[in-house]
């Protein structure tokens, strides 16, 4: 018998390799639940990730502030000069503000999009260069379930694909496994938007004669029942067509590199997501549009969809 077969290490390596391959095979498809080991480890490391994220944010914020100081000083000087040349600007602005408030009331945006959100902090990112995911500090204890849409004020971020007690993992739109039903706001041409592991997304249209132009806004179509209809996804930056296939490159509306806080859509009339746990929202007539900073980590009901959305 060769010497290697008498070695204990050989058998340990063999068992580990086989176990790994079995695990790989078992987890190659997207799972509906997580294992206890995953749940335990993710929850155990979540406080450490939160502390580390806060520290990193504080340090990088300080450096950013220092770097911006010079630019802000010259910008301030420039704005002072502009202001001095336009004495009526303040009055004009106040008038526009009043008009804006009136228009908002008339439109009654809250009635048109009765979504409910739960705000969450980003505590972790994908730890490799292959997947585009992030971890948030809300989990099943907060009512988060798999496949809930995640948004910011700018637009769609992605969807929840893994939930533990205190955390949830979000697959970003840019991930290669991400695919969502979407449509062009102007022409209403629909298609599938996919991540390419790059900054931009690719939209493939169902109709090869789709009317799409650079600069057109892309929204969720609501066809795949995961995402509520009308959430902004991005803008078309390039159009290409090969025979029967028409494609567009879409620049995402959300800046994925600087995400610190997100909103999880816990209820929408279209998807019925979270319906058993959450009462139907009661939007107030005078509710303003979605606040730039969502009010704390509590659940937010009846706010408007991310800004720039066109409600179909």
């Amino acid at each position, binding site marked *: 018998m060769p010497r290697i077969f008498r070695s204990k290490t050989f058998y340990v390596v063999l068992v580990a390799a086989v176990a790994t391959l079995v695990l790989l095979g078992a987890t190659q498809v997207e799972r509906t639940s997580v294992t206890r080991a995953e749940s335990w480890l993710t929850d155990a490391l979540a406080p450490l990730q939160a502390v580390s994220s806060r520290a990193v944010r504080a340090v990088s914020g300080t450096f950013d502030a220092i770097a911006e100081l010079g630019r802000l000083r010259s910008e301030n000087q420039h704005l002072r000069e502009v202001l001095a040349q336009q004495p009526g600007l303040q009055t004009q602005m106040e008038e526009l503000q009043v008009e804006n408030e009136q228009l908002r009331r008339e439109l009654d945006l809250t009635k048109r999009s009765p979504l409910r959100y739960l705000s969450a902090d980003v505590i972790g990112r994908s*730890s490799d260069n292959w997947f585009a995911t992030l971890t948030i500090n809300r989990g099943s204890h907060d009512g988060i379930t798999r496949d809930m849409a995640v948004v910011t004020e700018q637009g769609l971020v992605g969807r929840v694909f893994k939930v533990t007690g205190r955390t949830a993992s979000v697959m970003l739109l840019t991930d290669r496994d991400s695919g969502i039903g979407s449509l062009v706001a102007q022409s209403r041409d629909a298609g599938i938007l996919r991540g390419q592991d790059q900054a931009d997304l690719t939209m493939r249209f169902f109709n090869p004669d789709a009317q799409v132009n650079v600069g057109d806004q892309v929204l969720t179509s609501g066809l795949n029942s995961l995402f509520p209809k009308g959430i902004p996804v991005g803008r078309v930056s390039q159009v290409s067509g090969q025979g029967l296939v028409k494609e567009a490159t879409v620049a995402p509306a959300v800046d994925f590199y600087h995400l610190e806080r997100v909103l999880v859509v816990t209820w929408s009339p279209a998807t019925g997501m979270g319906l058993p746990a959450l009462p139907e929202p009661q939007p107030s007539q005078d509710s303003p549009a979605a606040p730039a900073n969502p009010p704390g980590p509590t659940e937010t009901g009846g706010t408007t969809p991310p800004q720039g959305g066109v409600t179909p």
Partner: protein
Amino acid sequence: MKWWVTVGLTLAAVVAQSTLLDKVIVFGVKPDLLLLLAVAYGLLYGPVRGAAVGFLGGILQDLLVGRLIGLHALSKAVAGALAGLAEREVFKENLAMPFLLTMVGTVLSELLVYGVLYAVGRHMPLAQAWKQVIVPEAIYNAVLSPFLYRILYRHAPSWYVEAEALTRSRSSLRR
């Protein structure tokens, strides 16, 4: 190095990998601390410990990401083991060794990841993976590796380093 120090280092690297390293992205990639650790352990203590540290870091990373469990465990264990195979053949004091071995280890490890991802239907063109992930990450990891290696080498038990030097001098005398 004591086992609990190794486990602590690996856990710290797992947390840093998903938080801190996101702020040091260069050419679109972040370095892989866990791979650096596996290669450094392999080079210092041999293939078994290199593979063990790679496997531990990789499986923790896999469980945290929650996608393909075993993907990083396998690739990092291979990188650690390969670095460990060179352990007896090279001068550990030479900082060019971790640089070269980390570069080669990253390329092999990430090609393995690419192969597995491709096999499960995640079809990224090889040219894109090579240009966008594998090459920049290999360079980035290689540049950082001598720093981490130096720290680990300094904290390696003195009996270990002395025994290693003795073994090498004996083997060179035999030749």
